[in-house]
C-alpha cells in the first residue's frame, strides 16, 4: 500500500502487560511487537480476551495500576519511549499527539457538559486558545465530522444526541488537535450498519485530510478489510500473524486466522455448515503449554503442545506457527493455505 517508505511514528517492542490478582498472574499482553507508519492504518484483530484493547490502553498508559502493570517492553512514539514518560508528560501527549476513541461514546463523554465545551477543552488545554476561539474551533470540528447545524448541536449535552452523532462528537474531540496517532478501539461496534458505514467513511476521509496514523482495534473482519493497510492478529496476548491486508484475506497463514475467516457467515454466498473453530479460548490465567492455539488447532502436533513457537519473520510478514518452521513434521503448510483461499474465493 505504498507505506514502506514512510516514517515510523510508533514502535511497540516486546510489550508485556500483566495483571496481578492474588497469586494469579494474568498475562493479558505478553510480548507484542509492531510498528505504525505515518498515515497508515494498522488493524489489531482478535476475539474477546485476546489482549487487543489492553495493548491500546498500554500505549496510552491508561492501565490501572494495581492490578495491572506494564512489566516489560518499549513503546517508542517518534523516538521517545512513552514508558519512561512522566504522568504530566503523558497528559500533554494524550488527546494532543495521540488520541483514542472508544466503543461506547456515552461512557467517554461527560454527561453534564455540552459537547461543544468538551471539544473546546482540548483546544484550551493543549493549544492554550482563549475560550471564545476554542469554542469556534469546536464548532468547526463538529462541522468537519458532518454534524448538521453545528452551532446548535455544540450547545447540546451528549444525551440529546443519537449514538452515531455521539461517535462523531468523539471523533471531533479526538482529532481536534490533529494528533499524529489515533487509536480507535471498536469505534463502530455499538452502531448499526448504515451508521457504521457513515462513520468508517468519515474516518477514512479525515485520515486522508489530516495524515493521521490509525490503529484500528476490532473483531470485525469486514471492518479490517475496508479500513486497514496492515493487520496484526492477536490470540491469548500474543500476535500470531502480522501481514498486509491483502495477504491476510487471500493467503492467511496461521491456522487461527484461517479458522477465523472461515467461521464468518458470508453475505454473498451460502454454505450448509459453517467451519467453526472447535473449543473455546483458554482462560488467561491457565494457558496451555506450548502454542496457546494448539488445543483448538486441527494441525497441532506434539511439538505444538510442548514448545511455544516464535514469531517467524519473512520480509514484512510474520507468523507464530511451527508449520512454517524447519522443525515441522505435520502436513505441509502450502496445501492448507491453498485450501483456505479456495474457500474464500467461493
Amino acid at each position: 500500500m505504498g507505506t514502506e517508505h514512510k516514517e515510523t511514528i510508533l514502535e511497540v517492542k516486546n510489550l508485556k502487560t500483566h495483571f496481578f490478582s492474588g497469586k494469579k498472574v494474568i498475562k493479558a499482553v505478553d510480548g507484542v511487537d509492531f510498528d505504525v507508519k505515518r498515515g497508515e492504518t494498522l488493524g489489531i484483530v482478535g476475539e474477546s480476551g485476546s489482549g487487543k484493547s489492553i495493548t491500546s490502553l498500554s500505549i496510552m498508559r491508561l492501565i490501572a495500576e494495581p492490578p495491572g502493570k506494564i512489566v516489560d517492553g518499549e513503546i517508542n512514539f517518534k523516538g521517545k519511549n512513552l514508558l519512561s514518560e512522566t504522568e504530566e508528560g503523558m497528559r500533554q501527549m494524550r488527546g494532543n499527539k495521540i488520541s483514542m476513541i472508544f466503543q461506547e461514546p456515552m461512557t467517554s463523554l461527560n454527561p453534564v457538559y455540552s459537547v461543544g465545551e468538551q471539544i473546546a477543552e482540548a483546544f484550551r488545554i493543549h493549544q492554550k486558545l482563549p475560550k471564545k476561539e476554542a469554542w469556534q474551533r469546536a464548532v468547526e470540528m463538529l462541522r468537519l465530522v458532518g454534524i448538521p447545524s453545528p452551532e446548535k448541536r455544540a450547545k447540546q449535552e451528549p444525551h440529546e444526541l443519537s449514538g452515531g452523532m455521539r461517535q462523531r462528537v468523539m471523533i471531533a474531540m479526538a482529532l481536534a488537535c490533529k494528533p499524529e496517532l489515533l487509536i480507535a478501539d471498536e469505534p463502530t461496534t455499538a452502531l448499526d450498519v448504515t451508521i457504521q458505514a457513515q462513520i468508517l467513511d468519515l474516518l477514512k476521509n479525515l485520515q486522508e485530510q489530516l495524515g493521521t496514523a490509525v490503529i484500528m482495534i476490532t473483531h470485525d473482519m469486514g471492518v479490517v478489510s475496508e479500513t486497514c493497510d496492515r493487520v496484526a492478529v492477536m490470540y491469548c496476548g500474543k500476535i500470531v500473524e502480522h501481514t498486509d491486508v491483502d495477504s491476510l484475506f487471500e493467503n492467511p497463514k496461521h491456522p487461527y486466522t484461517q479458522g477465523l475467516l472461515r467461521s464468518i457467515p458470508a453475505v454473498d454466498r451460502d454454505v450448509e455448515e459453517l467451519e467453526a473453530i472447535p473449543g473455546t479460548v483458554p482462560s488467561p490465567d491457565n494457558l496451555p503449554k506450548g502454542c496457546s492455539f494448539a488445543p483448538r488447532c486441527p494441525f497441532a502436533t506434539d511439538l505444538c503442545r510442548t514448545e511455544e513457537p516464535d514469531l517467524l519473520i519473512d520480509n514484512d510478514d510474520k507468523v507464530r506457527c511451527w508449520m512454517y518452521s524447519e522443525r515441522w513434521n505435520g502436513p505441509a503448510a502450502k496445501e492448507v493455505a491453498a485450501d483456505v483461499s479456495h474457500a474464500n474465493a467461493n
Partner: protein
Amino acid sequence: MSATLTLTKEKEILQVKDLQQYFPIKGGVFGRTVNHVKAVDGVNFTIYEGETVSIVGESGCGKSTTGRAILRLDEPTGGEVIFQGTNLLSKSKREMRSIRKDLQVIFQDPFASLNPRRSIGQTLEEAMGILNVVPKANRRRRAIELLEQVGLKEEHIDRYPHEFSGGQRQRIGIARALAVEPKLIICDEAVSALDVSVQAQVLNLLKKLQKEYGLTYLFISHDLGVVRHISDRIIVMYLGKVVEIAEKKSLFDNPRHPYTQALLSAIPEPNRKKKKERIILKGDVPSPIDPPSGCRFHTRCPLATDLCRQSDPELKSLGEGHQAACHYAEAIS
C-alpha cells in the same frame, strides 16, 4: 433445500396480523399519556412449519418488540397473533403458560436469563417440570441427553452458570428451550454476544437441532451474515414497519426496497476482491414517537418523491413470495 421448502410451506405455524405495539409516554403533572412510541405499527407476516424466518433491521426498528409481543412478554396494543390456529392475544395468562411450552425463546445474554443459584441440572429439570413434559423419574436422564445434544458433557450437569463461558451458556439456553419440546423457538439476537469462532459453533448447532426436532425458528438479528446463513426467508423492518419480505436468495440478490439495498450495501465486505458500490444513507433513523408522514423511509431515501412524502406504501407482492413496501418497487431491481 428448495424441495424441503415447498413441502413445509403447506402448514402455517404462526400468523401475525396487523400487530401493533404502542408504548405510552407519560407526562405532565397528572402523569397522563401525552404520546406514544409506535414501536411496532401494523406488522403482518406468516411463518410455516419447519422453516427459519429472520427479522432484520437496525436498533429501534421494532424487531425485538415484535418477538416480545408474539410471546406476550409485553402486551400488544392491537392485532392478532395466531399460533397453531389459536389467537394468543385472546388467551388468559394461565392459558398462555401452557402455550409457551410450544413457543420458546432464547435471548442474547444467557447469563441474565439463567438463575445463578441453580445448577444447570436443576434449571433444566424445572423447565421440564412446569408442564410435566417429562415424568419426574426421567428428568435427570433427559437433562443429560439434552446437554449432550447441545455439545456439553454429562459432568456439566451439577455446575452453576458462572462456571461456563459465553458460548457454553448459550448452549445451556438452547438446552433449556428444548427441554419442553417446543415447536417454535424465537431466537432474539441469540448469537450476537458471541465471538465469531464460537458463534459459528452455535449456528451450526441450531441448524442441526432444527433437523432433528423439526423446529421452526423466528430469528431476530441485526447481523446480515448470520441471517443469510440461518434463514429460509427474511423480513426487513424499518421504524416499526415491514418494508420487505422475501426468500433469502431473492432478498440478497435482488433487494427491491431502497432501505434493504442501503442496508445490504453498508455491510463491510471481508472479501477484498469484491469492491462494491456503497449507498451511504444520510442522517439517523427518525423518532418512532413522531414518525415521518407517508413512507417512513422517505427522509433518508435517495429516491424519495412527493408521492412518498404523502402516501404510505402498502406491502405489495412482486411475485415468488417477494413483497416490498415501496411505491417504486416494480421499477427498482
